[in-house]
């Protein structure tokens, strides 16, 4: 793409230098393409460090090569059923867990695995959450979600040290 753009620009220059009308032989866009891909990419921030989990540190196009999906189910396989419902349910589960755990999930990464009619939700929680709270919220989430989703829900939590679970530190702008 870059090569094409430079060629056409060069052609423009040539044409204008010879005083000809600015007509191109092929009708392609001479404006450089704005490949503004920003999803899942973390840039250095102004004035502060940024810590990324392994999942965040790997770019979206490296999915399957370097990391695997956060959602595991059979709805998108050939002949799979209720893919739309599953997606919406997953969105709901993610939001609910995020809120119920007071934003305490490590890297906001929530894994949802569906086995038959069981939904397994796995994520990491730092040990700053007290055990009493932890047990209560686990039971609360399982109960509420299984009522709403009409199937058994299991929360499989891994507790981590407060700063554990991060794989990469991005320095602030200007500091390498």
């Amino acid at each position, binding site marked *: 793409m870059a090569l094409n753009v430079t060629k056409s620009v060069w052609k423009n220059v040539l044409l204008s230098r010879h005083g000809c009308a600015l007509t191109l032989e092929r009708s392609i866009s001479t404006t450089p393409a704005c490949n503004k891909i920003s999803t899942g990419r973390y840039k250095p921030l102004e004035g502060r460090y940024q*810590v990324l989990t*392994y999942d965040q540190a790997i770019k979206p196009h490296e999915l399957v090569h370097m990391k*695997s999906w956060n*959602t595991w189910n059979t709805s998108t396989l050939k*002949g799979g059923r209720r893919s739309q419902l599953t997606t919406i349910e997953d969105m709901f589960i993610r939001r609910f867990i995020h809120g119920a755990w007071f*934003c305490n999930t490590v890297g906001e990464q929530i894994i949802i695995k569906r086995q038959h009619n069981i939904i397994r939700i796995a994520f990491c929680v730092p040990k700053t959450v007290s055990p009493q709270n932890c047990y209560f919220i686990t039971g609360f989430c399982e109960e509420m979600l299984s009522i709403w989703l009409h199937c058994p829900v299991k929360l499989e939590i891994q507790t981590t040290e*407060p700063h554990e679970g991060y794989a990469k530190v991005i320095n602030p702008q200007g500091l390498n």
Partner: protein
Amino acid sequence: MSLLSVSRNSVKGLGGFKPIGAHLTLNYAVRLSAQAGADAPEFGDSSDEFRQLVIKPPRFVESKKTKKAGLHMVMSKDYKRADKIDPANVDWKSVWPGPRTFDPNSIPIPVRQGRLKPKARSFGKHANMELMKIPTFFHLTPPAIEAHCKELQRFCTPFPKELDTKAKCEQHFPLTVITNDYLHSSPTIRDPQARIVTVKLKVKDIPLDNHARDKFMRLVRDQYDEKTGTLTIVTDRCPLRKQNYDYAQYLLTALFFESWKVETWESEKTLEDMEVYEWDKNVSSKALASILKWTPDKLGKSVFHEPLKSEELKPEHLAYGAAVKEVVEGESKNGLDQYKTAAIRLLI
């Protein structure tokens, strides 16, 4: 993924987490070292040397201590529980009874997954989300499977010894019913495809005579496979499997009795209506009978006899009939030769 994630701000969710050892010192002022306070940071010069004028000091000043801090502080501190498990003596079935997400505190083996740089060491098992994603089979160790099978054995009966060969199985159980069950990872166990019932049957196992067989073939049409001689009935019009199965049974029954029925109008079928050449009903067999039982009438001409009965037919007569049929259906050199030899054998 970004659609499903709650928010893109990563540091927000840490619960008051501050980056480790990032001592930031911001200094925008152009300052002379002579006027600097006693606690102000110094940039690479000691007080003994000539003072420098720093027009634009670097925005971030980090001590050597901070630089080395980095990642090792976010690593795990102590996890002793998994190390205490002795794999040789522990009853693994009770440690990991069923399928569940990977738990580093219960797995006494070193597991690693995921690396960011090509030659870097991959990450350990603690707080490793990649390991939590994949399905594990720690509950399916050989002793666990053995124990499961031993429990299930009580509910099983041995396979009958009499049905030791496939031929015997086919003889005693000629009907094959095929249904499919579907398992999805969803709260419902229903699948519309599960209603389809396929019934297979070898046509030679159905008692049919020539007429009934002909009619049967006309009724089943392309559901009969000539290569294997199998009749396949697929029923999927009813919403339930039971209904479809019953419908298939009904179809088989109806086919059988319908093919044995002889309607009154079937006797009106003449030789011209026949699809296949049948020698014993045709003129050729009558001619043969007339030659074999030659009797003159009053005028001395030969009497036209009815075809020979099946018990009177000899092998050479049948061979002649087969040769005639072959010639009638499609004339070929080989067929004509056969006809010649059959005719000679018949007459001489």
